């Protein structure tokens, strides 16, 4: 691009430009490049620093021991993070199971069924869900959602006790399910926004092909839209998953913060992110505890890196399919 710009300049002026006048350009170029490269260095440093600080706990329990042992007992100095890992995965899975179908349905609704007049306001309302800070979601869930839903959860646990992971004696107020539910609400805007973008890139000729064969609206959606948008929707869901995995404050308020592996989704639990937020204060004095929390942070970091990389690749590939570079922009708007 540099060469091109100098060719385009006419009148031979470019040939006469003194090195001094080219200095700001070079400075800018180098400066911006340096900043950008610094990001890569920074991320690398993150990873290294986290690993180093977590070393003590990995040395004592081994990496696999730390991640897969089911015993997190601060008083005894034992740090097996399995209840945390499982808690993270269970709440995130719940968030996906509850949130993705609704998010995709809303996206479909807005794209295909919504009357024009309603479309703008409904879109804004769904997107505004992202503007509520997580601590406020936690506050609301703790004082409103938990008491309101407890009787229903109890009824559900009693009635459907034969479904695995449902039965429990007394439904705990804060539990995995509530955490999953509030996470579902929190990932709804992002999954919906991406799904909306992807669905709107389905070429109308595809939709017309299905309709012209004599299909009902739903059959057209099923045949022409969903298969086409599938990769982007899955990518968007994984971005939502990444968010759910890393969400700290809302979860720690409503999950009960109990480092015991529950038997039912209505039991109390813990997640990797929540344990860090809760215990770091008391861990300041205890080096092993501190290392354990940092180890939890490292596991969290790696998890989200993996999930988000896959998600970005999928969204990127679906972008190329539709040749529109704005799907990622939809994400950043959230």
């Amino acid at each position, binding site marked *: 691009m540099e060469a091109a710009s100098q060719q385009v300049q006419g009148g031979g002026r470019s040939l006469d430009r003194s090195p001094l006048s080219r200095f700001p350009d070079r400075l800018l170029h180098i400066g911006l490049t340096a900043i950008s490269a610094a990001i890569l260095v920074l991320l690398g440093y993150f990873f290294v620093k986290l690993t180093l600080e977590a070393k003590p706990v990995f040395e004592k329990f081994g990496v696999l021991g730390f991640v897969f042992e089911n015993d997190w007992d601060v008083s005894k100095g034992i740090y097996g993070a399995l209840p945390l890992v499982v808690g993270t995965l269970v709440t995130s899975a719940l968030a996906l199971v509850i949130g993705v179908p609704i998010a995709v349905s809303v996206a479909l609704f807005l794209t295909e069924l919504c009357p024009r007049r309603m479309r703008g306001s409904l879109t804004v309302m769904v997107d505004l869900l992202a503007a509520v800070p997580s601590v406020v979601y936690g506050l609301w869930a703790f004082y409103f959602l938990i008491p309101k839903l407890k009787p229903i959860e109890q009824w559900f646990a009693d009635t459907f006790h034969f479904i695995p992971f449902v039965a429990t004696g007394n439904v705990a107020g804060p539990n995995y399910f509530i955490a999953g539910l509030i996470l579902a609400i929190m990932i709804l805007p992002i999954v919906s926004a991406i799904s909306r973008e992807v669905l709107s890139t389905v070429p109308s000729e595809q939709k*017309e*092909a299905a*309709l012209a*064969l*004599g*299909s*009902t609206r739903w059959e057209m959606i099923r045949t*022409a839209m969903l298969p086409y948008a599938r990769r982007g929707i899955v990518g968007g869901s994984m971005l939502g998953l990444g968010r759910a995995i890393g969400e700290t404050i809302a979860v720690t308020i409503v999950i009960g913060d109990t480092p015991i592996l529950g038997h039912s989704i209505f039991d109390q639990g813990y997640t990797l992110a929540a344990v860090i937020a809760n215990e770091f204060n008391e861990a300041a004095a205890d080096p092993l505890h501190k290392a354990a929390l940092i180890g939890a942070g490292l596991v969290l970091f790696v998890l989200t890196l993996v999930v988000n990389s896959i998600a970005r690749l999928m969204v990127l590939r679906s972008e190329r399919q539709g040749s529109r570079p704005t799907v990622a922009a939809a994400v950043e708007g959230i």
Partner: protein
Amino acid sequence: MNPNRIDAPGREAGELSGQLENGELTGATGPSPREAVPWPAVAKRQVELRRLSAYYGDHLAVKQVSLRFSGSDVTAIIGPSGCGKSTMVRCVNRMHEETPGARAEGEVLLDGADLYGPGVDVVAVRRAIGMVFQKPNPFPTMSIFDNVASGLRFTGTGRGEIEDRVHAALREAGLWDEVKDRLGKPGLGLSGGQQQRLCIARALAVEPEVLLMDEPCSALDPVATLRIEELIGELKERVTIVIVTHNMQQAARVAGTTVFMLDGELVEVGPTEKLFTNPDDERTEQYVTGKFG
């Protein structure tokens, strides 16, 4: 519908359509008594437009067109860009109303029954009247087989039935020999001309009475175009065909009757030869001699 079809052994005209279109075939729940009204077999259909007008919002794109498409040959619709020929044709299978803000007035009669009448199911209309589009649009995530079968899958046709009809449709579209060994391969892997024939097969698989073709060759090279024109010649025995084209030579090659439209109005309709050599209307003459458009 087509008693002479070689690939449909054991089927009689009438029995085929009757069992297929009335409810489901899979036998899980049989056709309900309400839907088991016998479907009379007709070889070809008369399509008539009566004072058909089409709007995009307030803009009138097709102005009170009255016209008959006879079932015995191919009708071509010609005219300069923007004259409303595509819009008019899209009104026949009620695709026009899919555009937001678009509507149609007037009547479109299929053997005497108004497709815009009250209580008419638009899905049934589109099943009976097939369409092939300007740019080939096979479903990109589906194989060749699944593409052709897609219309059949809506009505819950049984697997054996689907296989028979897909093979038959591919034969009718002249694509069988080229794809018979790779029915499971993606539809997009074919050339442009093959993709268009795939779309024709897909449209034929549901056994429409009428086939609308909206400039089907405009995105194809001359060899592929010729192939499709030959195909039209073969298909016209079984289906009423209406083809929109901006290529007058094409109209002359394939159509027995030609319609000339200008500015949303029907200017002239008549036997193709007459329209091109000795048209009644001066505007027609100017168009076919290349003075405009």
